[in-house]
C-alpha cells in the first residue's frame, strides 16, 4: 500500500493545473436557464478541444484513453481550480456515456459518445416514475413494437435537464404483461420526438431543474435499444453501479475544498472560538479525509480488479450524507442572513435546499442502507 503518485502522474497533474489555471472562465455560470445551458455547452467544447474531456473514455470515441487514476487527478485539480460545475452535461458524461461504453453497439457508440464529449448533445435520465421511485422495478411506461419502431406511452418524473435535453436514457416495459425486473428495455429516446411533453417542476430551492415527462405514442427506432430488448434492468444497473463506484468523485473533491473554505470563514468571523463549532469542523475535516481515503481505496480496487468493490455503495451513502452535513455547517456559519433568501438566488441557501437530492436521487439513503446490509453483511432481503 502507498499513497504516492508516480512521476508520470505528477507530470500529468502539472499539465492539468497549468491548463486549468490559464483557461477556467472568470465569469460564473449564468443564472438564466437558457444562458446556463449555452455556458455549459461552450465550456464542455473547450474541454474537448484541449483534450480534457473523457479522460478515461476510449480513444476511438473521442476520449483520451487514460487511466482512472489520471481521471481522479484531473478531477482533483479541476475542483482546486474552481472550474465550472458540469451542469447540463452531467447525465451524458456521468451516466449515459459510461452506460453506452459498457453496453452499446458500435454504431450507437460512434454516433453518441463524441457528441456527448463535445458538449453537443445534452442527455437526461428517464428511470423514475410517479409509481416507481425506490421501487424502480415497478416501471409502467410501456413500449409496443410496431415494425422497426417502439411506440412509447407513459410518464417519467424527477427528470433533471428534461427541458433542455436532446436525448434521454429511457427504461420502458417492452414486454406486455411482464413483471418487475423482466421485460424492460433501455433505449435512447430523442427528446425532440413528437409526442413528448415536458412539464417543469419547481424545487423548494426555487430552481426549475427537473420535470415530469409525458410520452404520447412516441416513436423510437428499435435500433436505439441498448444491450438488447428485455435486458433493460441489467443495463440500468450497470449505470447505477458505475454511479455508486466512481461517478461521484467530483463531488467528493469539492467537499474537501468546502471544508477548508468553511474553516477559513469560521476563523475570519471568530466562530471557531465556539467549542461546538470547532468540534464539528474538526469532525467534518476528519470525515472529508476519510472520504478521500475511501475513494482512493475504491479506485485502487478498480485498478486491481477492473470493477469497484462492494464497498462502493458505502462511499455513495457516506458522500451524500457528508455533503449534507457540510451544507448545514455552511448554514450555521451564515447565521440569520439566510432568512433573506428569495427564489431566483443561487447561493448557499439554494445549495442547502437542493442538497436534499443527495440522499434521495439515484437510490435513497434508506435503499443504500438496505444494499449495504444485504450485500456486505449478508442480512436477509426484505423486498
Amino acid at each position, binding site marked *: 500500500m502507498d499513497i504516492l503518485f508516480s512521476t508520470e502522474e505528477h507530470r500529468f497533474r502539472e499539465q492539468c493545473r497549468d491548463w486549468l489555471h490559464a483557461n477556467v472562465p472568470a465569469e460564473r455560470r449564468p443564472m438564466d436557464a437558457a444562458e446556463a445551458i449555452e455556458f455549459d455547452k461552450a465550456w464542455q467544447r473547450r474541454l474537448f478541444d484541449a483534450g480534457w474531456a473523457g479522460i478515461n473514455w476510449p480513444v476511438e470515441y473521442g476520449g483520451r484513453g487514460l487511466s482512472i487514476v489520471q481521471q481522479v487527478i484531473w478531477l482533483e485539480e479541476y475542483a482546486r481550480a474552481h472550474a465550472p460545475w458540469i451542469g447540463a452535461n452531467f447525465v451524458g458524461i456521468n451516466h449515459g456515456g459510461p452506460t453506452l461504453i459498457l453496453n452499446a453497439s458500435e454504431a450507437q457508440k460512434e454516433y453518441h459518445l463524441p457528441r456527448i464529449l463535445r458538449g453537443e448533445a445534452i442527455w437526461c435520465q428517464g428511470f423514475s416514475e410517479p409509481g416507481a421511485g425506490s421501487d424502480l422495478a415497478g416501471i409502467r411506461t410501456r413500449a409496443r413494437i410496431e415494425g422497426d419502431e417502439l411506440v412509447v406511452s407513459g410518464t417519467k418524473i424527477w427528470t433533471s435537464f428534461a427541458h433542455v435535453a436532446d436525448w434521454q436514457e429511457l427504461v420502458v416495459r417492452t414486454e406486455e404483461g411482464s413483471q418487475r425486473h423482466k421485460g424492460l428495455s433501455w433505449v435512447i429516446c430523442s427528446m425532440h420526438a413528437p409526442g413528448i411533453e415536458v412539464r417543469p417542476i419547481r424545487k423548494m430551492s426555487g430552481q426549475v431543474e427537473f420535470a415530469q415527462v409525458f410520452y404520447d405514442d412516441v416513436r423510437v427506432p428499435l435500433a436505439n435499444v441498448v444491450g438488447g430488448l428485455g435486458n433493460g434492468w441489467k443495463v440500468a444497473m450497470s449505470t447505477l453501479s458505475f454511479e455508486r463506484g466512481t461517478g461521484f468523485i467530483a463531488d467528493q473533491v469539492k467537499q474537501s475544498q468546502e471544508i477548508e473554505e468553511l474553516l477559513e470563514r469560521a476563523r475570519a468571523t471568530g466562530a471557531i472560538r465556539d467549542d461546538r463549532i470547532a468540534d464539528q469542523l474538526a469532525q467534518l475535516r476528519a470525515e472529508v479525509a476519510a472520504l478521500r481515503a475511501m475513494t482512493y481505496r475504491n479506485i*485502487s480496487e478498480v485498478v486491481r480488479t477492473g470493477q469497484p468493490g462492494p464497498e462502493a455503495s458505502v462511499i455513495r451513502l457516506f458522500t451524500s450524507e457528508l455533503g449534507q452535513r457540510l451544507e448545514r455547517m455552511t448554514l450555521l456559519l451564515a447565521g440569520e442572513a439566510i432568512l433573506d433568501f428569495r427564489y431566483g438566488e443561487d447561493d448557499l441557501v439554494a445549495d442547502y435546499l437542493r442538497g436534499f437530492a443527495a440522499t434521495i436521487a439515484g437510490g435513497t439513503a434508506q435503499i443504500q442502507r438496505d444494499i449495504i446490509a444485504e450485500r456486505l453483511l449478508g442480512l436477509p432481503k426484505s423486498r
Partner: protein
Amino acid sequence: MDLTPSTEQDMLVAATADWCRENMPLEQARARPPHLWGELEAMGWTGMTAPGMDLDHASEALVFAELGRHLAPVALLATAVAARWSPHAGPAALALLDNHVPGGSLRVLDPHGAVQALGVLGHLAAVTPLPADLGGEPGLDLSVPIVHLDPAPPFEALPDPRAALHLQLLAAAYALGCADAARDMAAGYAQVREQFDRPIGWFQALKHICADMAVRCAAARSQLYYAACAVDADTPDAAFHIAAARQLADQAAIDNGRANVQVHGGIGMTDEAYPHLCLKRAHLLSFVAPARRQTLLGEAA
C-alpha cells in the same frame, strides 16, 4: 498510489486472524491466560517495526486491526511503540498520561510483566522504567488490569514526535478492529435471531443499524490505511491523517459497541453475552492517545 493491501499483506492478515481465532478468541477476553504474552512475543507482534525488522507501518496497522478485533492485550500497543522508540528494552505497559493531573495518581494499563510504561504527553511519547510485580486489578475492561501509581513516577520524553504518532496509529488500528468485531457480531446475530417468524435482520430498523456500523468501519479503515501510508512516506500531513484515523476509529468502536448491544436486545445487556466486551474495550481505547482537535483542524500546536 494503491490503497489496497498487497498479496503478502493479505496473507499476513489472514495468518494473524487464523492465529487469533485459535489462540486468543474474543470470547475468552474476560481474562487472558498468563502464557499468552509469551506466545504474542513469539509471533513477533511486540516489535514489528523495531529497528532491523524492516516492516512498514501499513503492514503493522493491518495486523494490529486483526489483533484489536480479538481484543488482544493493550500492552501490545505500548510494547510495539517502545520496541521502536524507547531506550529501554522489554514489555511496556500503557500509561494514560494524556489526562493525568499532576499530583494525582496515574493509571497504568496491563502492567503484568512490564519493565517500562509508555504513554503520550502533549505531542511526544514518554517512558519510565517500572518496578517488577506492580499487580493491578481488572477495571471496566475486564481483560485489562489497571494499577494506580501515586505519586506518578517521572517520565522521560522521547524526542522524536513520530513515537507519539506511532502509538496513535496502532490505537486507531485496535479501535477499528474492535468496531469490526461489534459489526460482525451484530450482523451474525441479526441473521439467526428470530422474532415475528423471521430473522430480525429482515427488518429495516435493524438492518439500517447494521449498515451504519459497516459505514463507520469502512470510513475508519480507509483512513487508517491512508494514515499508515502517510507515516511510511513521512509526509508533512501525517499527523493530521493519523488524528483523523484515530477519531473515526474511536467513534466507530464506541458507536458500534453500543449498537451491538442494542441489536442483541435483552441478552445484549448481560455479562454472559459478548457484546459488552467490545463496548468496554472501545471506552478504554478512547483514552489511549486520542485525537487532538487542533491537529484535526490543521492548527499548529
